[in-house]
């Protein structure tokens, strides 16, 4: 892992218009609201949070699959917020959550992987294209005869491998992994997680790993950001975050995760959060978490806490860090 920022976002905002309750009333969902972070070359940054917290939107906006409402995106020091993305698509790729929906059912797996090669003119002739496809499939643990089959002939785990091979086809440096294992069976998840790790080692890849399963994110990431209603509430080294979290939301999230060990499960006392995640159309004023937070007071309703560096490399956004600790 180098100490060079490969990807960076500053004050990223992504608002989506929605129809309000009243006729013709216009409202916005602040899916991503002032998010800043960077990822070093060769590093894996994990993003966790509950559904609707904006983690997927962050990943997609970062690749400019959505045009950001505001904020800046840098790739290798270059501001790519408003440039033509085609040359950058070769460097930045994505693996989607649902391997059943993200592969075109009407073309063969070889062509799914080959499409990227065609678009970026990476093969001089048909033979070279074919060799490259087979090489890519081998890289993800599939063999050459799989190239002529269609997506429906594969299991979920194999399809996700195809999705990964497609992302690798252009020799990218950076991959956004958007919940790549949540649709897979438990016994298959470990295969795919190990593959991501092997590929990173072999090709020096940088990942943004998005998932709601903190155990998996902690396993694969160097650093983790926790999102709640469009904002990053805590960001730290993955061990630091799991063992010494300081934000009340992160703490309750960690305590809510069921541990696959009966003794620990019996002994542990959960911090059970009351209520549901508020609607992102109408988030609470001030700190978004205050409606479910045991420490909330008036200040939280008025002021939005900033993400501050508490200890070296450990950031948290909360007014009451002293009390929480």
């Amino acid at each position, binding site marked *: 892992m180098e100490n060079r920022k490969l990807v960076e976002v500053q004050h990223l905002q992504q608002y989506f218009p929605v129809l309000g309750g009243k006729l013709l009333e216009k409202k916005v969902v602040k899916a991503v609201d002032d998010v800043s972070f960077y990822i070093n070359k060769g590093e894996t940054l994990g993003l966790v949070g509950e559904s609707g917290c904006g983690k997927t939107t962050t990943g997609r906006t970062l690749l400019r699959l959505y045009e950001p409402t505001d904020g800046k995106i840098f790739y290798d020091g270059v501001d790519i917020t408003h440039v033509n993305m085609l040359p950058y698509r070769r460097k930045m790729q994505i693996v989607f959550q649902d391997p059943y929906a993200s592969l075109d059912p009407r073309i063969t797996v070889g062509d799914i992987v080959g499409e990227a090669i065609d678009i970026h003119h990476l093969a001089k002739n048909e033979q070279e294209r074919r060799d490259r496809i087979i090489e890519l499939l081998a890289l993800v643990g599939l063999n050459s005869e799989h190239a002529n089959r269609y997506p429906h002939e594969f299991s979920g785990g194999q399809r996700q491998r195809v999705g990964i091979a497609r992302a690798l086809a252009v020799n990218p440096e950076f991959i956004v992994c958007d919940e790549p294992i949540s649709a897979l069976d438990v*016994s*298959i998840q*470990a295969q795919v*997680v190990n593959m991501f790790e092997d590929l990173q080692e072999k090709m020096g890849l940088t990942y943004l790993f998005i998932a709601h399963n903190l*155990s998996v994110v902690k396993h694969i990431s160097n650093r983790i950001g926790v999102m709640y209603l469009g904002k990053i509430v805590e960001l730290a080294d993955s061990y630091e975050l799991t063992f010494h979290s300081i934000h009340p939301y992160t703490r309750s999230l960690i305590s809510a995760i069921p*541990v696959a060990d009966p003794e620990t*499960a019996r002994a542990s006392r959960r911090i059970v959060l009351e209520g549901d995640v508020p609607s992102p159309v109408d988030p609470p004023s001030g700190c978004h978490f205050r409606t479910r937070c045991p420490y909330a007071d008036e200040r939280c309703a008025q002021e939005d806490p900033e993400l501050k560096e508490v200890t070296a490399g450990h950031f948290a956004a909360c007014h009451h860090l002293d009390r929480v600790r």
Partner: protein
Amino acid sequence: MNTTGSNAATGAAQNVHNPDYLVDIQHERLSFFTPAGEVKALNDVSLYVRPGEVLGIVGESGSGKSVTAYSIMGLTAYPGRLIGGDIWFNGHHINEMSEREMRKMRGNEVSIIFQDPMTSLNPVYTIGNQIREVILLHTSKNKAEANARARELLTLVGINEPDKRLKQYPHELSGGMRQRVMIAIALACEPKLLIADEPTTALDVTIQAQILELIMDLKKRLGMAVILITHDLGVVAGTCDRIAVMYGGKVVESGLTDDIFYRPAHEYTKGLLVSIPNLKDQSHTRLVPIEGSPVDMLNPPAGCPFAPRCRSCMKVCLGRMPEYTHLTDSHYSACWLLDKAEFEQRQREEQA
């Protein structure tokens, strides 16, 4: 250790119901007759649940965990058919019940909550209407009494402002709330058994914790038995008394929660336990995956369904399904390795 013979395999003796068990499934075989061929969803499944007990059924998609639980309620969807074995529930012999008798039992003695609270409530009826329906069907209460009971149930499952909620429609509630409403409906007649089919899979972690806590709390208060179906080992670790691990239409191992987690006997259970990352790990250890793909239920292997993916697969595993080896009174597993271990131990004893 002793090995019991499976009488379905030998085609001998009739299954005998054990009256101590609330649910008693013996040698159940259930197939789906699809255009592509017969899918043997359940292949000789035996299970039991004692009154007031929490049984976790763990397995991946297609392992038959939901089908097993649904068959207790007589809910086998077309083109599925029960083709062998016996199911007893609360003294009823399910195999011999008519649809009419079954309808009297469902919702009254046994209830179910489904995975997806978004689709299991009817969107065009109010919450109140859907809760009252169960009460009016199964009890002699009139509408006003049923309404009072519905309000009581919503309070029981931790929904505030019950009067307001009774008049609302499902789309006005969040996912966690809808699952609470589903639980309220399921508990309306204080059933002896609650089947929870992946009750928290569609919910966020913090909401999952709320719902699991609620189910366990209600179980204690009402004294019902619970069958918790899930693929998440974390969920069963903290909640269940006993666990049955299913793979490829078979119960490959069953035992007390501690037996399964600390003394797993089947290779699949062992593999599953080491393949999941542990949040409490202090350092990075590489995961040990179970290689291969899940079983193709249209063409299942002749012997042990897990054999093609098993690290310790032997020749016999491919051809014949092993019998259960009982490790303790409640802990048993079907694996040839256990037979081998037992055989070797007997040999050692004979030599000594």
